[in-house]
Structure formats: structure tokens, C-alpha cells
């Protein structure tokens, strides 16, 4: 790349509030790959909870806010397939009839990436320099998989991690039952789904489950812990950046 790209990091509300080290891992991966990383302080939420619950007006307001916060960057990078998918796949339609924002929404959508796919597709990163001596399974989050087509990228980078052995889940394409507000609106159905996912994870014999979305990971980790399972849950960025010294998600400190 000729000039260092200026990347606006959208941490997402979940990472900001719950697990800052994913934000730092993302920043490290981007900086190591030659980006200038900035974190605009006016970021809050991408608007997905409102959008998916039918509150279109609030979703539009939040979309405009995100656009204002990020429009000056070469790229917007998000350590979450679902929030990146929201900006990439939904903002343009959401603001199509807004004369001031329609073009901006399209432009931002074309420059917005989920973290791992950005590293591979745009920065052409071929291998990570980390090491992690465990058998891991990777959970494909639905939005990343189906809205952004992310499938090979995380596997490719994980294959280069020293000591890591990647195992495939039998139901890799199945939803874990998180679904944003779904998990609290339909807790019993959600529990059944995450139960199946956890059984699937345990069947691989992996000792860590990785994913690119903190929402899914909190759901999976929460169920693993409730069952007393020793399987750890981590964001894929933590492993790729080598941030694996501290407790995994939901673990004793």
C-alpha cells in the first residue's frame, strides 16, 4: 500500500463496554499491518437493536451519527461481523431517501469492513505472528457469514498461528441463538439453540471456541460457564494479536 491508510476503529458498544481488550487487539493488528488507527470518541451504537426491532427512525438517527463520526476515514473497521454488516449491508437502504446522507451512506458502506476480512482482503495479510497452543473451533457468526461472506479469512489467519489446531464444528453454519434482543425476548428458544451449539463445540474436543462477534461469544461463554465446562471463549482478534494472557470471556480473574 502506497500510503498508510487511516482507519477509524468502530469498537462497537459491546466491545467498548464489556471487553476493551478486543478493541486493543484490533488496534494492534491494524497498526502492525501498517494502518494509522483512530477511535472517534462520538461513537456509540450502530443502531442494530432499533433497526431489528422495527424502530426505523432511531436506526436512521444512529446511522447518521455513525456516518458523521467516521466519514473522514479511508476505512472503517469493526471487530464484529454483525455491526459491520449493519453499516455495509443496511445503511444504504436505510438512508436511501435522505438527500443529505444517501450518498454518504453508500460511500461509508463501501469502505466498512469486519476486522479479519479487512486484514486479509484489503491489507493482504497472509499470516499472523501469534502463538496459541490449543485446539480451537471457530464459530461463524450469522451476519459475518451471510451478509459479508466471511468464511475462509479467519481460518486462513488462524492456520498461521503457532501451535494452534483448528477443528471444524459440525453445525458451523448454525445460529448460536444470540440474535441481539432475541436472546432476551425468547430466552427458552435461545437456550435450546446455544445448548446445541455448546454440545457441538464439546464434540470437537477443542479447548477454546473463537468467533468474530462478542455477542455470540457472550452467549456461548455464558452457557459454557453455566454448564461448568472448561472450554474457553475468546474473540479471534485476541488470539491473532497474542492477547491471551488474561482470563477468557466470563472467566475468573
Amino acid at each position, binding site marked *: 500500500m502506497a500510503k498508510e491508510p487511516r482507519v477509524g476503529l468502530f469498537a462497537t458498544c459491546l466491545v467498548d463496554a*464489556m471487553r*476493551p481488550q478486543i478493541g486493543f487487539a484490533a488496534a494492534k493488528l491494524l497498526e502492525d499491518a501498517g494502518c494509522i488507527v483512530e477511535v472517534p470518541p462520538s461513537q*456509540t451504537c450502530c443502531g442494530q437493536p432499533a433497526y431489528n426491532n*422495527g424502530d426505523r427512525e432511531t436506526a436512521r438517527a*444512529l446511522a447518521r451519527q455513525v456516518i458523521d463520526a467516521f466519514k473522514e476515514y479511508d476505512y472503517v473497521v469493526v471487530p464484529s461481523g454483525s455491526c459491520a454488516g449493519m453499516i455495509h449491508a443496511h445503511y444504504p437502504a436505510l438512508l436511501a431517501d435522505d438527500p443529505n446522507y444517501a450518498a454518504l451512506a453508500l460511500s461509508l458502506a463501501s469502505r466498512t469492513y469486519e476486522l479479519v476480512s479487512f486484514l486479509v482482503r484489503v491489507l493482504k495479510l497472509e499470516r499472523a505472528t501469534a502463538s496459541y497452543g490449543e485446539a480451537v473451533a471457530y464459530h461463524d457468526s450469522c451476519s459475518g457469514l451471510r451478509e459479508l461472506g466471511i468464511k475462509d479469512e479467519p481460518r486462513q489467519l488462524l492456520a498461521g498461528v503457532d501451535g494452534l489446531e483448528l477443528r471444524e464444528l459440525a453445525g458451523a453454519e*448454525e445460529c448460536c441463538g444470540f440474535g441481539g434482543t432475541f436472546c432476551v425476548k*425468547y430466552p427458552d*428458544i435461545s437456550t435450546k*439453540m446455544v445448548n446445541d451449539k455448546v454440545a457441538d463445540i464439546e464434540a470437537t474436543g477443542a479447548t477454546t471456541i473463537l468467533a468474530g462477534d462478542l455477542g455470540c461469544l457472550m452467549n456461548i461463554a455464558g452457557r459454557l460457564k453455566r454448564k461448568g465446562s472448561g472450554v474457553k471463549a475468546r474473540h479471534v482478534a485476541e488470539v491473532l494479536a497474542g492477547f491471551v494472557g488474561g482470563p477468557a470471556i466470563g472467566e475468573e480473574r
Partner: protein
Amino acid sequence: MRSRPGSIKSNTGAALADPVLQEALAKLKTGFQAKRKIAAANLPEFDALRDQARDMKRAVLDDLDSYLEIFESKVIEQGGQVHWAETAQDARDIVLAICKKANAKLIAKGKSMISEEIMLNHWLEEHGLEVVETDLGEYIIQLRKEPPSHIIAPAIHLNRKQVASAFKERHKELDGDRPLDEPRALLDEARAILRQKFLAADVGITGANFLVAETGSFVLVTNEGNGDLTQTLPRVHIVLASIEKLVPTLEAASLAVRLLARSATGQEMTSYTTVTTGPKRAGDLDGPDEFHIVLLDNGRTAMMGGPFEDMLRCIRCAACINHCPVYGAIGGHAYASFYCGPMGAVLTPALAGLEDWAEMPDASTFCGRCEQVCPMRIPLPRMMRAWRERAFERAITPAATRFGLGVWGFVARRPWLYRTLVNLGMPLLAMLAGKRGRFAQLPLASGWTKSRDLPAPEGKTFLAQWEAYKKGGQR
């Protein structure tokens, strides 16, 4: 058009606690899902065919009136009769009148979702007619007085034992001690009984998978051949079909059939694919004397030109249902509507009103698998979201959800307030969780913590730490 009492929420507990149902649902993955995957992989042009089928159907819908007119004139030309039914009641009246005119006592019926939609059996029975379902699955649930739990596999929620006991209970004329443990024995018994019904029936009623404009034909696919017997043996044949079943040509019908079987059961073709045109002609060996087509609207015209028009491309293959994780958890009966899963979540509110059915499009994680497998490329999540937007506008969305979203929206739209609150709240929560790093219980989060621990925040927020780090401090 409620098929069962209750709501998804109130029916979930029973569905999750039903071991037979859960066993059946677990088989979806190794059954329908796996078979569809293989069938799609074996046909390199599968995705191209999906595009073609979508475009074909779009063109039909753009010009539906003229295609319907052509279809009608062709049917009449062949000696058939066409009846237009605007509402469910119209359709019931038309069918009943035809049966009465034919002095019918016994009706043989092929599987038809439209007949479920208009609750036809109930209506005919109320008027003194005997109706026998001839599809094995439909026959079984008819004996059990249940609605279907799946659009192509109506009795998928039952196991062999339950079928055997339904047979023992309802086939009173047979020896009570007969062995019914083998599937073969069940099949033979149903076949023997249905055969008598086919022969005795005065009227046969079937659905239609496709109506073909250029020839006035209809296409019926089955795996049991019961549809063929239902339409050839009785004197009078009634086809019940909704207006969006129209395709322009036989060629277009064969395109749709190729997609239908692969998406539904993973078959290249179903065992029987029958194209029928008009009643029995002079010299024909069999076939009905009278041939009627009842064309049902029941809310479909109102879907045209709006956000739900794409749903009219649906060919009822059930791929979306087979791959839906919510259906996979609770089965079809829990939806309380004849149409279930993602296709039902879009269609039911359109046909029967959002007021009573807003929960169906709400109960989805938007995982998107339904759209991924839909052969007609119907954007099911987008349309479920469109229903949610209407529910929100009309204040049908539950008050608790509205309130929560309102508070969240208010705070999220004010970054300074948002920052203040998370910067205060997260360290506090982290402290409350202490060394455990998670909550086993938390007020207001019981929906989550009933079955899952809630991971606790690390402490300071990312943005606060990032600012300190940029200023040269430590994080």
C-alpha cells in the same frame, strides 16, 4: 386461520419438553438439510436456475392479470370451469356448491395448504360431507384431529408408535391385536383403507403446485401417487389454487419443479410429477367428467406492489422451514398458524392480519439461513423486518420492548450522555462481579441468567482506556 391456540411464547415450553418432537426436529439436520446440500452440489447450475426462476416469477407477478386471463380461457377451452374466490369464505362456498351439485357424500382429498388456509375440511364436514385425506401424513393427522406441523411433511412431529396407536384407535373395524410395529404394516393398512375411499369418492380435491398459463394445465408433485388417484378416480375434480401459483409456460413449470424437489427433499424429481389439462375427453381411459379450478386470492392481490410482494414467488418447498433454527427448536405447531417458519412468518400476517400475528416475524434471530436456501431468492429477513417496522409504527410491539428501545435510543443518540453512563456503569458492574468475572444472577437480566451466566465487563471502557493510552499513559 389459527390452527392452534396460544402464542409462540406460550407454546414454547411444551414444544421443548416433547421428546418425540425434539427427536424428529433433530433429524432435520441429517435429513432434509443434508439432502438439499447434496442435491444442490450435484447440480452446478443450481444457483443460476434460482436466478432464472426468480426473474420468471417476477415477470409473471408484474403482469399477473393477463396471465390469469390466458389461463382461464385455456381451461375453458379444454372443457374445464374456472371459479374466482376473493375470500376464504367465497372459496368454501364454491367448493361446497360443486359438491352439493354432484350429490357428493365422500370427498377424497390430496394434500393442499390452501385447504388448510381456508379450513375447508371443517366446513365440508359441517355440511354433512365425509372428507378423507389421501396423503399419508395428512391422513395421520386427520385421524388425530391435528393441523399439519410442516408444509411438506405434515406429520413430521410424530413417531411410528404414535401413528400405530392412532390407527388402532380409529380403524375400529380391524382386529385390535394386529401387529403394527413395522412401517410396512402401517403403510399397507393405510393403503388398503384409502383404496376403498378412492373408489367410493364422488369428488376429488387437490391442490396445485403450478398453474400453466399457455396450456391451462396444472402441475402436481407428490411422492405417494395419491394425488393422481385423487384426481383421476372420482367423477368430479376440484383444484384449489391461489393466484400466485401461475407460471407462463410448461418450460417455466419444469424449471420450478427442478428447484422445488431439490430444495424440499433433496430429490432430483419427486416420484410423481403430473401435468393435467382439463377433464376426461372422448376416448380417454380415465379422468373426471367435471374439472373445476378454484382460484383463491384471500389477501394476495393486496400484497402486490408493496414490501411483501416478493413473498408471492414462494413455491412452498419448505427449505426455509427446514433450515430455520427457531422452527428446529419448537416445530410447526408452536407457531399456531398453518404456515410456519420463515415463510409463515411473512405470509401469515399478510393473509390474516398483523394484529394477531406480529409475534411470528418477531421470533427470528435474523440468522439469514432461510434466505440463503430459498430457491426463489425471497428476502425473508428483510420482509420480517418490514413487519416489525409496521408493528412498531402501530404500537403492536410489546410495551417492554418499546420502552427498552426508547431508553437505549435516547442514550445512544447523545454520545456525551452515553459515555458518562458507560464510564460510570461498567467499572461498577465489574466490581460487583468481583473475581468471578461473571454473574449467575442479575436483576432485570433474568431472561439471560436463567440458563446462562452473564460475562461481566472488564472494568474501564475501551474508549476511556484508549484515550489514556493515546495520551501516553498506561491502559
